[in-house]
């Protein structure tokens, strides 16, 4: 009965301060929602991936080589622990699409003639698998077909090793091997218009590449993934004489790694934000309940005098916090679940899944609700402790008048004398409520830091792309040859119409080893004084590649633990040269996408026993000539792929623009709610505490505007301090975030544009203004008559 009375009071009290309670709930709601949405989306995505992997038997290892007999499959299957192996013919090709000038790049993968369950199977979405015994039918990757207006029944012309083939599309499909469809690690964003997969009957592939009974790619699955390394090295030994290029474990497979890495990035970001929101909720609860206990002191004294236990009184305030936190969490669950579904579908735009799994994860819900409740409890504890410590007899007497005291700043008499009375009052008031002022400052600081975290995400990606295209890929057209060529090929390219300048590149796979640490990566041969591939060192200076030394990108240098001046051992992973060689690391360069190493092109050629070799030509074109050139290149044999840089750049920008705007909106919303919740709450509390003071000013003839300016300027002062601290704090947080995101394929550079600082300041100013406008309403409701009558 009595307990019921306290509960009733709790509810009434909560309704009375609904604005503040709502602000706290909103903070908890967003924290819960951001965590749940991210975690659930993450889990659903992994589940979708794993279900897909299982249904279509995604391989555990991938070995690509020059050429080996198809019968090696049986030898490989004999390795203990191997479950199944499939031999394939894989080759990059060009496809000529009617109505499109430029040739599109495509990867051909051979499949068994009959549609049966095999490793890395193809899921046919429309049309059908190719008919048995027919060699000119193919299954095309669905996204590529959609972006190029191709349908089952259409014909396409595929150029393989310089020969053209007319093929009919029998169906559209997708495969677990290409959930994330990129050609290599350097193309880190899928471009469905420009790159696709084509699955062809084995007999066609054998015929087209003149490889009857041979394979150049083996994929396999194992019984125990823990023994993968051991199995892989056995397989490599077995295939050694067939010229193994690379052998890759599932964890290093490009599509797999991208899917996993990209989830990690956002996961880290959102977990950080969720945590900050929880901290803010605890702080706001602390301030609000602190004020409540203060106001309730007479009643607390009364309840104590009646014989209520300390626990009952503490529990009242804790319950207050828990009710706000848990109702925020429950609403957050709904929002979070809804957001997670949106997010999964957003991902599906980037990833190729046949079906998306959406499940509810009670453990995630429970975890974040409990975490939120713990933070709320933490916030409530200080207030509860103060309530418990209230002495009943003292509490029933009116409180002693508040003390005014001098602040530190007043020691500087000159400075102090410059201030008007409003400023003096603000300074003294901040000094009077130092804890609350600190919360205000911290709230703005966190809010600014979160904003910057969001902006940094955009700046970093933009910077990365700009760096890629303004320094590393300055060419207009990139032509990949099927084999290494000599200088003649470069001259041939340079003579083509519209080519202003042509530069060679030699890309070759190597193993780089430093003691026990090693990695397989491409070494890129770059000419001296290269104009198209400009490398930048860690101090932002352009560097020229000369001599015989090696230049490493930062991620490789870190992964191998080497510094400038160290010597590493390199070994070609392709061709006839197999001996190892020691080279000195000359420089370390900035690079965030892909993991490349660089060397002067002649030096690299010599390692391969050639005076000069190249397999890529970079072309700078005269204005408006690119299309004609590309059309012409379609008919030149021995070209494996043609890339238009501008096209890649534009495609990337368009693709990223949407997701960036969405991201920025969400982050701004989060940050806005934080700033609003803190400023609104502390100002309301300050208003409540000082209503007598402010009402007397109103009676004396101060206008409403003058009074609100008093509160407003205090907020502005605190917000400014918060901003001044928040900008470096945000910078620091961005640096930590960059470190926390540990990805193999790409790294986020730390990069903040000046405009991001500016936007942060502008948005924070806007949030503070909004919170102040919300308080303004309360000032006009100040009851002058009532306030003056009673004693505090």
């Amino acid at each position, binding site marked *: 009965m009595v307990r019921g009375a306290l509960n009733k009071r709790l509810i009434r009290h909560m309704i009375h301060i609904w604005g503040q309670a709502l602000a706290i709930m909103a903070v908890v709601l967003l924290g819960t929602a951001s965590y749940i949405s991210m975690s659930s989306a993450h889990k659903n995505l992994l589940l979708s991936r794993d279900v897909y992997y299982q249904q279509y038997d995604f391989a555990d290892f991938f070995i690509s080589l020059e050429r080996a007999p198809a019968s090696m499959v049986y030898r490989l299957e004999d390795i203990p622990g191997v479950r199944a192996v499939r031999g394939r013919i894989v080759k990059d090709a060009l496809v000529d699409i009617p109505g499109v000038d430029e040739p599109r790049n495509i990867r051909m993968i051979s499949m068994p003639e009959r549609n049966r369950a095999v490793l890395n199977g193809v899921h046919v979405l429309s049309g059908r698998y190719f008919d048995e015994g027919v060699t000119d039918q193919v299954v095309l990757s669905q996204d590529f077909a959609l972006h190029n207006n191709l349908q089952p029944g259409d014909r396409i012309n595929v150029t393989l090793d310089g020969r053209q083939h007319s093929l009919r599309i029998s169906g559209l499909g997708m495969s677990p091997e290409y959930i994330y469809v990129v050609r290599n690690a350097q193309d880190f964003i899928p471009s469905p218009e420009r790159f696709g997969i084509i699955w062809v009957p084995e007999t066609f592939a054998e015929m087209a590449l003149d490889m009857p009974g041979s394979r150049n790619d083996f994929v396999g699955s194992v019984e125990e993934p823990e023994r993968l390394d051991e199995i892989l090295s056995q397989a490599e030994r077995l295939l050694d004489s067939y010229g193994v290029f690379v052998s890759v474990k599932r964890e290093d497979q490009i599509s797999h790694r991208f899917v996993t890495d990209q989830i990690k990035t956002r996961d880290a970001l959102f977990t950080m934000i969720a945590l900050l929101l929880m901290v803010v909720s605890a702080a706001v609860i602390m301030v609000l309940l602190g004020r409540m206990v203060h106001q309730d002191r007479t009643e607390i004294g009364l309840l104590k005098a009646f014989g209520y236990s300390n626990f009952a009184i503490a529990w009242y305030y804790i319950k207050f916090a828990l009710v706000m936190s848990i109702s925020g969490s429950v609403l957050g669950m709904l929002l979070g679940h809804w957001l997670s579904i949106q997010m999964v579908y957003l991902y599906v735009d980037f990833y190729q899944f046949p079906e998306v799994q959406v499940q509810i994860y009670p453990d995630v819900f429970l975890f974040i609700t409990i975490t939120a409740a713990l933070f709320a409890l933490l916030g409530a504890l200080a207030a509860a402790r103060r309530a418990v410590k209230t002495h009943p007899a003292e509490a029933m007497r009116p409180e002693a008048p508040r003390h005014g005291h001098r602040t530190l700043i007043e020691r500087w008499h000159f400075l102090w004398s410059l201030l008007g009375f409003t400023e*003096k009052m603000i300074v003294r008031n901040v000094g009077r409520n130092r804890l609350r002022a600190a919360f205000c400052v911290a709230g703005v600081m966190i809010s600014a830091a979160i904003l910057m975290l969001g902006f940094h995400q955009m700046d970093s990606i933009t910077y990365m792309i700009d760096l890629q295209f303004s320094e590393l890929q300055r060419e207009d057209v990139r032509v990949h040859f099927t084999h290494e060529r000599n200088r003649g090929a470069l001259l041939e390219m340079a003579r083509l119409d519209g080519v202003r300048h042509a530069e060679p590149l030699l890309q070759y796979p190597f193993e780089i080893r430093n003691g026990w640490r090693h990695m397989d990566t491409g070494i890129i041969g770059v000419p001296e004084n290269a104009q198209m591939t400009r490398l930048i060192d860690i101090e932002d200076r352009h560097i020229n590649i000369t001599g015989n030394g090696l230049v490493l990108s930062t991620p490789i240098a870190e992964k191998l633990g080497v510094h400038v001046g160290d010597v590493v051992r390199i070994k070609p992973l392709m061709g006839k040269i197999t001996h190892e060689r020691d080279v000195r690391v000359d420089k370390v360069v900035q690079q965030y996408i892909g993991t490349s190493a660089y060397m002067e092109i002649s030096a690299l050629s010599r390692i391969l026993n050639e005076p000069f070799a190249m397999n890529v030509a970079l072309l700078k074109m005269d204005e408006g000539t690119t299309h004609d050139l590309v059309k012409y290149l379609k008919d030149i044999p021995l070209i494996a792929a043609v890339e238009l840089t501008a096209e890649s750049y534009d495609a990337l920008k368009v693709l990223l623009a949407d997701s960036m705007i969405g991201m920025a909106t969400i982050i701004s919303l989060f940050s806005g709610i934080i700033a609003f919740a803190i400023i609104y709450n502390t100002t309301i509390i300050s208003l409540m505490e000082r209503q007598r003071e402010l009402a007397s000013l109103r009676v004396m003839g101060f206008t409403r505007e003058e009074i609100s300016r008093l509160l407003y300027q205090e907020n502005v002062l605190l917000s400014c301090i918060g901003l001044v601290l928040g900008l470096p704090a945000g910078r620091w947080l961005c640096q930590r975030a960059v470190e926390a995101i540990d990805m193999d394929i790409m790294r986020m550079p730390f990069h903040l544009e000046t405009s991001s600082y500016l936007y942060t300041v502008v948005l924070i100013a806007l949030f503070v203004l909004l919170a102040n406008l919300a308080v303004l309403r309360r000032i006009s409701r100040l009851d002058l008559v009532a306030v003056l009558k009673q004693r505090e």
Partner: protein
Amino acid sequence: MGEVTVTALRDVSLEVESGEFLVILGQSGSGKSTLMNIMGGIDTPTTGQVFFQGNDLSAFSEGQLTRYRREHIGFVFQFYNLIPNLTAEENVEMATEIVAEPYPAIEMLRLVQMEDRKDHFPSQLSGGEQQRVAIARALAKRPEVLLCDEPTGALDLTTGKLVLDVLNEVNKKTGATVVVITHNATIADMAHRVIYVADGGIREIRENAKRIGAVDLEW
């Protein structure tokens, strides 16, 4: 349950002379505070009119009322209502900032004999001292009317007398109209005129033929 309407004042007609010392006397709940609030422009009558120097206050907007209070009225409250984190002098200065031709703060503090405590914060002052600072603050704006709501209500006898004496001095020296609201009948003896208020109406208006100095009051 909806709002309950309580009629605080009914059929009140009153004229206050410029420069007079007026005491409004009544028990709590009699309506005297409402009367003063209406005179001070922090409350408006539901019916009827209030004139100040020929202007109808009852027709004033919120903004006009604020200006009226700012330019013409000085308030002294029962609980002083000084700003706790401003010193005595700063409290007075604050009032000087919102009017065109204020009295210097320090002069006002001298008038209420608080000059030597000007750097003290309200919490370091006694009740009577706080009230004298509050009077100085009200006066600094050079108001035509000084409205005092139970100015001695929270003070002991000696201090109360001191404060009333200050009010009397102010009335004499500045010529400001002083209206004191109180339930303490003794105070009435120092006024030019006394208004007796009860049950929301004026019961009696008495003119004091002979005024008694504040120091000689007994209660």
